[in-house]
């Protein structure tokens, strides 16, 4: 019991969020592209997300300070864009195109198969922390429907029978 308390008090004294040197370097590089630091908002959020998978709440004031805007403004940006993740995600993020061309070429079946094999629905992460499943708008590969992206890789056309083999490549 007493040990638990000590750990908790120690946690309170820890700085909540510190940018790594790499993250800080990437943010500073992005700042050189614009005459106004605010414009680096998305680059900066993406830099943190690249290294941590998502953008925790306590990162917002730190990133905001690095680019010279208020935490409230950055929060407004961070909550607007669908590809900035504000909750932890799995090691691999699966983005399934749910737009019209894929709708006409097997999206329902692909989504169903993914949900069945992973045991999760859109917005959820598998218990082992391996996959997060998300919908995404048209991936601009409509000639290859039904499509999905896993991390930075585009897959298509994907039929339900292909799903197991593709997932196997992402451990």
């Amino acid at each position, binding site marked *: 019991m007493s040990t638990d308390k000590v750990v908790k008090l120690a946690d309170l004294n820890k700085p909540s969020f510190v940018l790594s040197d790499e993250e800080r370097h990437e943010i500073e590089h992005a700042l050189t592209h614009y005459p106004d630091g605010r414009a680096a908002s*998305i680059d900066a959020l993406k830099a943190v997300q690249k290294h941590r998978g998502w953008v925790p709440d306590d990162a917002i004031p730190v990133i905001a300070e690095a680019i010279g805007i208020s935490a409230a403004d950055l929060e407004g940006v961070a909550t607007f864009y669908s590809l900035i993740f504000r909750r932890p995600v799995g090691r691999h993020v699966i*983005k399934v195109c749910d737009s*019209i061309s894929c709708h006409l070429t097997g999206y329902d079946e692909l989504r169903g198969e993914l949900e069945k094999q992973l045991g999760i629905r859109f917005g959820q992460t598998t218990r082992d922390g391996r996959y997060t499943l998300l919908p995404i708008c048209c991936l601009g590969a409509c000639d290859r429907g039904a499509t999905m992206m896993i991390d930075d890789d585009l897959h298509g056309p994907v039929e339900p029978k292909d799903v197991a083999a593709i997932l196997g490549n992402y451990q």
Partner: protein
Amino acid sequence: MSTLRSAKDPNYQKPLTRLIDTAAGPLDLKSHEAEGGYSALRKAIKELKPQDVQAKVKEANLRGRGGAGFPTGIKWSLIPMGPDAGTKYIVCNADEMEPGTFKDRLLMEQAPHQLVEAMALAGYAIQAQTGYIFLRGEYVVAAERLNRAIAEARAAGLLGKNVLGGEWSFELYVHTGAGRYICGEETALINSLEGRRANPRAKPPFPQIAGLWGRPTIVNNVETLSNIPHILLNGPTWFKELNQGKTSDAGTKLYGVSGRANKPGCWELPMGTTARELLEVHAGGMRGGKKLKAWLPGGASTDFLLPEHLDLPMDFDTIARAGSRMGTGLITVVAEDQSIVSAVRNLEEFFARESCGWCTPCRDGLPWTVKILRAIENGQGKTGDIEQLSKMTRWLGPGRTFCAHAPGAMEPLQSAIKYFRDEFEIGIVCDIDEVKPDVCTLPAGLPDITDDRDLATKKAS
């Protein structure tokens, strides 16, 4: 795609894709220059005044390939010129997210130097000091290849301080987004580029007067820009004749087919090519021998057309006269055994999710529309639902909203109701509370639910 790499032919007919060989990947700077790349930029810097570049593009009658078809030369002509004009920006709209559209990806992944040269030329024409390529975040391959092309061009003096030894300096950056379809709207894109939420801005002032950071800004689509080096090299007359007399619109167009076609794809063809040629010749017809039921001419925000419209030349004015828009020119085909209600529900779900939420008709009207469509799709629509959907197409129509998002969303809906009203009616259940069972005429194809005790009980409770 074409595997032709013979740029030296002065009469080339497919300027945008002539150097594209998808199996081999994009050309590096040296190979690109060996095929004539950057010679338009060299010519412009040495021989042409910025106004001359503008004049050639105007004379070529190049129209915006992002969907609206606005004449590029006229857009450019609104930008302040002269020594007192100050800081200006050229921005490439590379946020390709219109459902059914997959042309800019090809140009950026396979011909990145073409776009880099085009950005420099457009920047020179309007005397911008800085350019940004606003690229959607998911296009990771395009980002990598564009950044590599920019680095090569900068190292060769084609970008940066004193481009090609002249007086004009130009920096070019790739800015990658983080999702949200609305970023493709010109003024929302500018807000997003400034690091704000991508809400559209009020117009006027137009971006040409007050755009990025309040400065004069031109925003052009990837395909639009990619035409510019070729217009400068070969002249406006050559460009106008690329359509082979099929239409009054100039140039070639990256057309495409997706949906249930045998060989979906994207091809550069003369402007004014018919949708029939796209579908039957290039895409090999409908898959499984099915008949075509309907098609979207150029993205989710265009009105459906029918098989009877297939022989119209695909150009901005002709498709507009048929009651739709050419949009991006990449058609999406729906087969006879596919549900139009389901397709429209999918389209409206997309628009509802992607609404920025700024104005009420769009933010609240689109989810309402989705709710009704889901009910109809599940055979649980109510009497009056179709009339309500028709009202939506007016309430969310042009002039009622801050930007074109909701009016665009209404285009496929209004045309689906116009052409396929019977499919909507099948999903309407007669309201048994209002109508006596014996006078209720059920639409064909629906089971007689008045005998269904479960449903009747639910309805009563």
